[in-house]
């Protein structure tokens, strides 16, 4: 029973970070109508920023959080404004080509990281990286708990922004009906730029908070792009609430898979769930909740 609860805790803590990753991906999918296949690579960039700040300047990852978030916000804005929006202006280019462009962006980011940092594994060893506390015989990683808390705060803040501010409503409006939003005076291109910035910023937060307990190498982006994709499919394409459930589900599936089936099956289980959802619940959790 203890093992079960230990696994549950691990899954939920991980799921919180996954939710953050999925939330950004879902926003991008909703507003731009594309799958951002550079999502994990953006996270990788944020992780290297965190690593450099820690390793060379001695900045604690949690202090680096605003820096990596702002940097990735700007990188996201740059990508949308100069690499993706121009593709939409050419009518003969299919929307799918924007997705191909994100693949290219992901490759460029990965190879740039390899060029600068080589393929070596890196990590950020802080004083609290291995710290744990116990509640009723179950251990909690201090860093992961803190990351989970931050993820909840960021997610709640994001929902407040989306639901209660004019700018947030504009993002939802563009996602629901681009043309109607433009008739309301929304500058849809600017909203797309902003959304990509926000998506990159959220995944940056997840990456930075993972650093104290994770490792880093240039190719780490790919697996996380896959995870983000699975999360958004689980949640229902473009559904922000669904992405949170998708993130938690993936966290739990991976944790229970690792405990009861074997560490090596962690990634495969996520993809099995992904296929099952596509087969038996197309539309994801959104189908069940309608949000």
């Amino acid at each position, binding site marked *: 029973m203890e093992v079960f609860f230990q696994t549950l805790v691990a899954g939920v803590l991980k799921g919180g970070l996954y939710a953050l990753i999925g939330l950004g991906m879902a926003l991008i999918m909703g507003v731009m109508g594309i799958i951002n296949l550079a999502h994990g690579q953006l996270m990788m960039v944020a992780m290297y920023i965190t690593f450099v700040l820690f390793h060379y300047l001695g900045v604690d990852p949690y202090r680096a959080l605003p820096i990596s978030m702002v940097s990735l916000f700007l990188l996201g804005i740059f990508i949308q404004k100069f690499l993706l929006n121009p593709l939409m202006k050419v*009518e003969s280019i299919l929307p799918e080509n924007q997705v191909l462009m994100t693949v290219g962006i992901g490759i460029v980011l990965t190879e740039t990281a390899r060029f600068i940092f080589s393929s070596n594994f890196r990590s950020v060893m802080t004083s609290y990286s291995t710290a744990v506390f116990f509640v009723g015989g179950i251990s909690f990683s201090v860093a992961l708990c803190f990351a989970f808390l931050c993820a909840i705060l960021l997610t709640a803040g994001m929902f407040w922004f989306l639901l209660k501010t*004019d700018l947030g409503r504009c993002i939802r409006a563009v996602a629901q*009906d681009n*043309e*109607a939003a433009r*008739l*309301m*005076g929304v500058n849809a291109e600017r909203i797309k730029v902003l959304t990509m910035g926000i998506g990159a910023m959220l995944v940056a937060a997840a990456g930075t908070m993972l650093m104290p307990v994770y490792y880093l190498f240039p190719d780490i982006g790919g697996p996380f792009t896959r995870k983000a994709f699975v999360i958004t499919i689980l949640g229902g394409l473009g559904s922000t609430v669904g992405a949170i459930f998708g993130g938690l589900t993936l966290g739990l599936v991976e944790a229970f898979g690792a405990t009861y089936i074997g560490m090596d099956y962690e990634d495969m289980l996520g993809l099995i769930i992904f296929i099952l959802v596509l087969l038996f619940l197309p539309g994801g959790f959104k189908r069940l909740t309608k949000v």
Partner: protein
Amino acid sequence: MLRVEHIQVFYGDLQVLWDVSFEVDEGRIVVLVGANGAGKSTTLKTVSALLTPASGTITFEGTRLDRAPSHKVVELGIAHVPEGRRLFPEMTVEENLIMGSLASEAKSKRAETMSRVYNLFPVLHERRRQPAGTLSGGEQQMVAIGRGIMARPKLIMFDEPSLGLAPLVVASIFEIIRMVNSEGLTVLLVEQNVKHTLSICDRAYVLENGSITMEGSGRELLHNEHVKAAYLGI
């Protein structure tokens, strides 16, 4: 107030509007009638700058619109109540109304305008927390009109507001349009409900296959033999 001159509009290689010109004077109700596919919605979308004319000019109170971005058109005071209502289905009624009032002036008077809209359509006040996608067709049209009013525009354009509604609802929608006009709002109305529209308008244009083929007062057109035969079934 609004002056459209010799616009040619294409969807890709397909030309849809041919040398279309018309004018809307301040305070009037001007109507654009025509059969399915004549290009009525295309005309309104071009005024709203969702489409760019290949040639020709559009001016609103002296400002050129034909190369302006769509958000600029809204800021200048033109609201567009689109065909098929086009509400934001997952937003509540109230949020849809808020979306109508994004420009700074409309935003500063948001609460005031909203209570006016609720006075106009009391049922919307009851349903203000309901997702717009779950309303009936008539209620959705009310939200669409209310959302247009929220912008506090100088000119409001309606694209087939009566489409798919029961006769009683249609009558009340036209009543509302007349009312907002009498309060000083200029109206450009696109309709297939020709008889009803011609009787409430000041000026009408007939659009056929992408060209304006006739214009005149509503009265004149109501008694025109071609209009009678083609649109009134007399």
